[in-house]
Each structure stands twice: as C-alpha cells, then as structure tokens.
C-alpha cells in the first residue's frame, strides 16, 4: 500500500495549485482525479476534430500574477492574452459598444446618455476603490473573529487599517454596497436601462440571484476585481483554452515531483478517530496519507465522500444546507466562419471580443423568474466570447468557436429531471436568441455542445453545476466560507483540508484557494512556507 504526505482529491486548477505548492515544499504528493483528464472546470476539450472548447470556464482575470510568476507558469506553457472590445445588445436595435480607448468609450456612452457617460467615471472610481481593498485580502487567510490568537488579532487589525484608509464616508458606502442588489447600486449612478443592464450582468453570472436580489452587487465586484497584468477589470484568454492553465500548473507540480492519477475517483476519505488518514478509491484501492485535501465543493465533500458517522455533530447538516444552487448553462459552438451581428460595424477591434446579450434589467429579471419556477427563459441572458478570434490554437484557421454562457439554467426542471431532449431544447433556445441578432448564425454551426447544470455536475462534479463551488453571498464569504468556524482551510477532521472555490476567496480561476490552503497546511506541518504571501498589490 502506497503512502503519501498529502493526497489532493480532484485535479481542478486549485487542487493542482495546492499540490504544486506542497510538492515544492518537498512533500510527497498525489492528486487523484475521477475523470480521465485533468483540469476540472478549467479544461480544454477537443469534442470536434480541430476545435478545442474551454467547455466550462472560458475567460480569466482572477489568476494571480504572484502564483503565475512563482510557479513559473509561463515556462510551463501558459500565456494569458487580454481581449478587447465588447458589444452589448439591447432588447431591440440598440447597441452599446465597449471601445478600448477611454475617450471613444465615453463618446459612445454619451450617445446613449450624456449623464451616464459622466457618471461612468465616478462608478469606475468607486468600484476600483472597493476592488483594491478586497484584492488585498485575496492571498491572505481570513482571520477568525472569535479567536484570541495573536495571528487572528493582527489580521483583524490589518483589515481595520485597510477599512480606515477608505475614509469615513466610504466605510459607510462600502458596507452598504455589500448588501445591495446590483440594480439598486447602479441606480445610484446611471439612468439608461441598457447601460445599467450591461453593468449589472456581472452581478448575476454564476449566481442564483437576480439583478434586483440583495447581494448581487458583491457578485458584480467579484467579477471586476481581477486584472490582466495590473489592468484591473480586464479579462483575458488562456492561449490553448482554459485547460492551458491547469496543464501549466500540473507541469509545475510534476516538475516538483508530484504525481497525478486520473480515472481515480474517491469513494471515501479514510478516518481514524476524527483524523483523516487517506482515501479509498472507487476501484477499492486504499491510499494512506498524512494529509488529505479535498478540492471538491463543501457539499460534495461532506455529504458524498466523508462518512456522516465520522463527522462532528452538525457538519453534515451544514454541508447539506450549503448554498450551492445551480443556475448557469453553457453552449459551446464550432462555427465555419465569423458570425456577423446586425447593427455592429465591421470593426475587428470591436466585434471579435465579447457579446453581451443583456437586453434590459427587466429581461434579466424575467429570466430569473423562470429559473425560480424551474424553467429556462425563452429570452435568456447570454455572455458570449469568440476566443478563436484571438487564439490561433483553438479552431482551424478561418473558422471559429464561440463560448456562450447562459444565465439562467435550472438544476432540475419543474416537470422532471433533465433529459437529452430537454437539454437540446435549451440549446435551441440559446441559438434562436443569437440568430435574432445574427441572421444566418445557425448556418455557420458545425458542432455544438450544450451543458446544463446536470452535465456540469455529472462531468466536473460541481454540485448542481454551481460554477463557484458555492454561492458568493455574504453569509458564505470570507471567514464564513464554507462554514462559520472553518474559514481557514482546516476542516472538522484533523489533517483534512479544503482547497477549492468553496473556500476563501471563492470562485474564479485564480489558483488562490489552493495556494492559500497549501500555506496553512505547511504551517501545520511546521514546514517553511513556499506560497507567496501577497500579490504585488501596490495600488
């Protein structure tokens, strides 16, 4: 029977990052993955010859430079490329172009509302201020506010100092911001509904909330606090698809001597006297390990692979009630050519970036209403990107692949479970909507992969297909993520840790959760830290 210092369950990008840092510290590390491929939701898959789909996550902004640099991911083949130019589509013929140039962008906003064009400066300034504060907490373990350990007290003081640095007025505003809905928050700045809809869309992505639901303004912030090379709010594509991120981290892990075993789903975490001691694989193999790290979401970890009887009282219930509702779908489409959209000029800097089929706040809210009733909307919010316009490696030259993220898509339907037929109907709804804005679009389709929460859960293992491994609402953030009292990556069983997005700072391809967890593990093992303490936030 083999014996490791650490076993990481799940080869998602955070699990790999966690393992890479443990291996870098000299530990004997094994990552076990149920699928035959690695990457979890940061994955590139060739489902149609010549096309590489980033079949789950599709753009990247949270990936921390400090980790990228520290694990030398460029040398391991990772190149992140920012993309520019987004077109926002209104319900009718209106279009809002997000130009790269600040002054051109201002004039474009002015075309819709002179008031909003000016207000955008104030909005961006406030959001940047909020982002800067929260960015400082990303690569730090949240303090336990009930603890009297010097470390927790120091960390609380650090936070207090950051807050105090905002100035009195902004402290009030910040607290207010965290509890508001995206739509209400935007009302403070804008009057034009189409502009509001475009700005609100990051507030609902991946979340079972509507634009009018309290808490959605934080989700908005979560989507704009990343950066590409220090340009806050910018989004990038990984050359070769999102799998390139996982592959690069895996390569770094292997260089440090770590091992990865695929087709190795975990049946049970082995526990002896409230202490994790290894895992039993689905094929019956037992692997002993001093440390066990679950990169699965909190619900799956504590309701599926840890025996309820092994857990302290109340943990199973906390996990069962962990808010991780599925709300998103994904349609990946191989296209024989570049689609043309009505009302969009033939400007390659503008029309190859992203397409936001936002419509209006009302359209978005109506789509949310459908989700609540266990249906999908006939007029869903779709966020699209055409990565092949930027990345020569993901589609044959002159042909394209389009990533379409759909909000909302229910985890189960009111009239029964998902079937292949219903899944295809959902996909049809999505391409019907795109066709409305791009006549002839359907004729370009070479291949299509439709993913509802059902497929995402079954393939990737994310409960209900929730892309964040648990909703990013304030009750489940920071020191309350995943559960109150367990916000520092240590779980209720000794030697059991969590490294996925169910932990601070939450969802997104950042590699931060895994890196932070590694730092805590090394601390417990009294090993020198190998994880960067901070990003280069000098803002």
């Amino acid at each position: 029977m083999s014996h490791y210092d650490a076993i990481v369950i799940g080869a998602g990008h955070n699990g790999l990052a966690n393992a890479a840092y443990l291996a870098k510290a000299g530990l004997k590390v094994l990552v076990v993955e149920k699928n035959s491929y690695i990457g979890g939701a940061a994955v590139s898959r060739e489902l149609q010859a010549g096309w590489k789909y980033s079949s789950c996550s599709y753009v990247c902004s949270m990936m921390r430079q400090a980790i990228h640099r520290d694990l030398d991911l460029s040398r391991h083949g990772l190149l992140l490329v920012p993309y520019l130019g987004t077109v926002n589509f209104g319900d009718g013929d209106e279009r809002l172009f997000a130009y790269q140039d600040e002054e051109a962008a201002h004039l474009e906003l002015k075309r819709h509302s002179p008031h909003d064009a000016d207000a955008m400066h104030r909005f961006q300034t406030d959001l940047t201020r909020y982002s800067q504060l929260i960015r400082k907490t990303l690569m730090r373990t949240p303090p336990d506010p009930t603890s009297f350990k010097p470390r927790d007290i120091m960390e609380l003081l650090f936070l207090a100092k950051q807050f105090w640095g905002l100035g009195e007025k902004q402290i009030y505003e910040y607290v207010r911001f965290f509890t508001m809905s995206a739509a209400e928050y935007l009302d403070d700045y804008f009057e034009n509904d189409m502009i509001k809809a475009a700005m609100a869309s990051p507030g609902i992505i991946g979340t079972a909330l509507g634009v009018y639901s309290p808490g959605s303004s934080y989700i908005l912030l979560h989507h704009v606090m990343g950066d590409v090379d220090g340009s806050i709010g910018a989004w990038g594509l990984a050359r070769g698809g999102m799998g390139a991120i996982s592959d690069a981290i895996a390569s770094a892990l292997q260089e440090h001597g770590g091992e990865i075993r695929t087709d190795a789903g975990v049946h049970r975490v082995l526990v002896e006297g409230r202490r994790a001691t290894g895992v039993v694989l689905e094929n019956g193999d037992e692997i002993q390990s001093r440390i066990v790290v679950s990169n699965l979401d909190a619900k799956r970890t504590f309701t599926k692979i840890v025996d309820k009887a092994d857990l302290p009282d109340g943990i199973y219930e906390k996990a069962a009630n962990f808010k991780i509702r599925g709300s998103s779908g994904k349609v990946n489409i191989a296209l024989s050519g570049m689609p043309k959209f009505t009302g969009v000029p033939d400007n390659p800097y503008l029309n190859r970036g992203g397409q936001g089929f936002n419509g209006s706040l009302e359209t978005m809210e109506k789509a949310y209403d459908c989700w609540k009733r266990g249906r999908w909307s006939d007029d869903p919010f779709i966020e699209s990107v055409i990565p092949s316009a930027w990345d020569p490696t993901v589609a044959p030259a002159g042909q394209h692949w389009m990533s379409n993220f759909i909000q909302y898509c229910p985890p189960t339907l009111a009239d029964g479970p998902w079937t292949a037929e219903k899944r295809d109907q959902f996909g049809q709804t999505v391409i019907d909507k795109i066709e409305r804005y791009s006549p002839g679009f359907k004729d370009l389709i070479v291949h299509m992969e439709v993913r509802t929460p059902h497929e995402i859960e079954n393939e990737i293992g994310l409960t209900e297909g929730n892309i964040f491994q648990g909703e990013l609402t304030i009750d489940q953030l920071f020191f309350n993520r995943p559960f109150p009292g367990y916000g520092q990556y240590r779980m209720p069983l000794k030697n059991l840790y969590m490294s996925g997005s169910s932990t601070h700072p939450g969802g997104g391809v950042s590699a931060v959760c895994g890196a932070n967890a590694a730092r805590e593990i090394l601390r417990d093992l009294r090993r020198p830290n190998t994880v960067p303490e901070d990003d280069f936030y000098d803002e």
Partner: protein
Amino acid sequence: MVTTDRFAGERLKLSPFYPRQEELNIREAWSSWNGYKFAEYYYDVEYEYFCVRNLCGTYDICPMQKYEIKGPDAEAMLNRMVTRDVGKIGMHRVAYCMWCTDEGRMIDDGTVFRLGPDRFMLTCGSPSIAWLEKSSFGFDDVVVTDITDDMAALSLQGPTSYAVLKKLGLDGIETAKPFDIRVFPYHGSQLMVSRTGFTGDLGYELWVEHDLGLTMWDELYKAGADYGIQPYGEAATNMARLEAAFIMPDMEFNEALKTVHFQHDQTPFELSLGWLVDFRKPHFSGRAALLEEKRRGPTYTLTKLDIEGNRPAEGAHIYSNKRCNREIGYVTSAMWSPVAKANIALAMIRTEHLDGPLWAEIYYEKELRHHSRVVPCEKQSKPFWAPARARATPPPEY
C-alpha cells in the same frame, strides 16, 4: 501643392507602406525614425505586443538603413570593419554584427547579409555611410551604395508568421533555419525572406524593391487575415526586444561617434556581447583595445534583472545596499513583462559589484503623488523570453 509647401524640408518622408499605415493608424500615434513618419503604435500598445507573442504582427523596417557592399574586396573590407568573422557567414546567411572605433567603443550594430561571394547587404539603425566609406579606405575594389530608399522591407513576427508565409505560397520556407535567407520570384522581380527579427520570437523579414512594397503588404495582409495579422509600432517593438534582452541604441548604448564624454559610450564586452568579437581573425577596427579590455575585464556589464514587485524600474539607479549610499549602476530599460509575468530590466552595473547584492531605487507616481521604493534585484542569465518555436525548423504552425 507639394512644391509650394513652405515647410517642405521639415516634413517627414513617407514609407512605401504609408497608404495602408495611414488607414490603420487609428490613434494617429506617429513619431519618426530616420526622417520617416513612423508609428509609435497603431491601435493599442499592449494589443500589438500581444499580436507579436500570440498571433503575428508587421513592423515597417523601411527607415532602417541598408547598404550594398559589393566587389572582390567586399568581404575583406567588412572583415576589417566589424568584430565578427565575415568569412564564416555562409551564402544566403545573415549574421548579427557590431563595429567599433579603434578604441574599441561601439559605433553601431546591425545585420550583415551574404547575398553572393562578393556581395553583402548591411542594415543598421543609424546612417553609417561615412563610416563605411572610411572603412573602405585602402580597398581598391569595393563599392558601397546606400540602397535604403530603393527597397521596401517589412518584418513579420510572431507564432503564426510561418503559417502566413505558407499561405502566401512561399514553398520551401519551412526549411529556412534562423538567419537563413530564401529568395522567391515575385511579380517579375524577387522577394527576399530572411528568418530574422528583433522580437526574440518566431519571425521573418521580407524585402522587395520599393515599388512592390504595397503589393507585398496587401498580399501579406490577405494571407494573414485568418492569422491575426496586425501592424505594430515602436512601442510594442521596444517591449518585445527587451524581453528578448536585445540592445537598443540610445537605451543600452550611445553610439561612439556621437558620444561627447570620455567613455560614456560602450564596448561589446560591457554590453555582454563579447561573443561577437572574434580575435582569431587578423586586424579589425578596435582589435588591440578590445584585446586589452578582454584581459582587464569591462568596467560595466549589461545585466538582465528580475526586480521585486510590479513597478517598472525605468531610470532607476542600482545600489549595492538597501540604504542606497553606494551607487553601482543604472537601469537602461525596464518594463513589466506580460509573458514572463516578471518585472524585468536591463542595467549597466559596475562589474566588480556584479556578484554582490543589487538594489534598485524606483520612483513612481500615483494620482500626482510621487513615491519611491527600494527593492532587491536578481540577476538572470537567460533572456526573459526565448520560446522553442523561435529555433524550431520547420517551425510550428502557431
């Protein structure tokens, strides 16, 4: 109209590619190079930089100086001028060279193309005809001609550059190794392609007669449409060349013939380019002084630095201690490298301090407030960016 232009003598010349550049320079971001109107950038510096690293881009090298050196004495003349052994440059090969004063101080660098047994082309950044003629003194049978304005030349750089040339129909380009030259028949004339560039990435330079310039541009852009082709300007070039740790005039070196102050110019050894000096060949300009410098060791050494944090160390001084009371050098070029995810710089550092600690004092501004910070630097032995595709033959398609 032009003849009555009161300011005619002050206006910039236009590249043969100007009609296309004018349309594509959306930001009107023009500067100049050797009297030509020249794009600082076309659309967005970072975008153009990423085209070079991710897709492909074109860079106008028409303003670069080009000289034909012809005649039975051409090789001997060049061999006396440059520090490398020109005799070792094979037919249809290119070599990166530099040339120095008798004191061993660097005048300029450039590329020497061997186009025939006694025919060469030399390219360089600054006009050098006077020095070339001076260097021809004593050679009876060599003719130096400035052919800069007779040619149109375009650099095509980036991972898809090879695929674009294949699409253009250049059969045989797959066998071209780095520094190889290939010549193709082209509209009754010829298209010369060299696998050279200034980005450290996979790339080529394309050379045609002046009047075929626009035709070549249009055909190249048609072939490159599905490969992300985009013109890039001086700003993106400067980023790419710094990642490749290539030196730039007026940044890393001050041309010797334009240097007022004693030894404010540089030697090849100071620029860490000693490998370009071949002492096995007989006399060449600066040989004795360079031999002495090699024996003694250079005063300064151009050093690649990885600097803590993300603030570019532009114009920073280098110290041997954190208290910054012993200055040992200065940064010549610095940037945040998006591909290396590192804060990189080239710096001239006094050689005797190279093995000790290195600290950079960096100044920066944040909303009109000025700040400074002192951060440690780490020496790097390899270029910050050197992808395998730049050396592979045949190169990958992207």
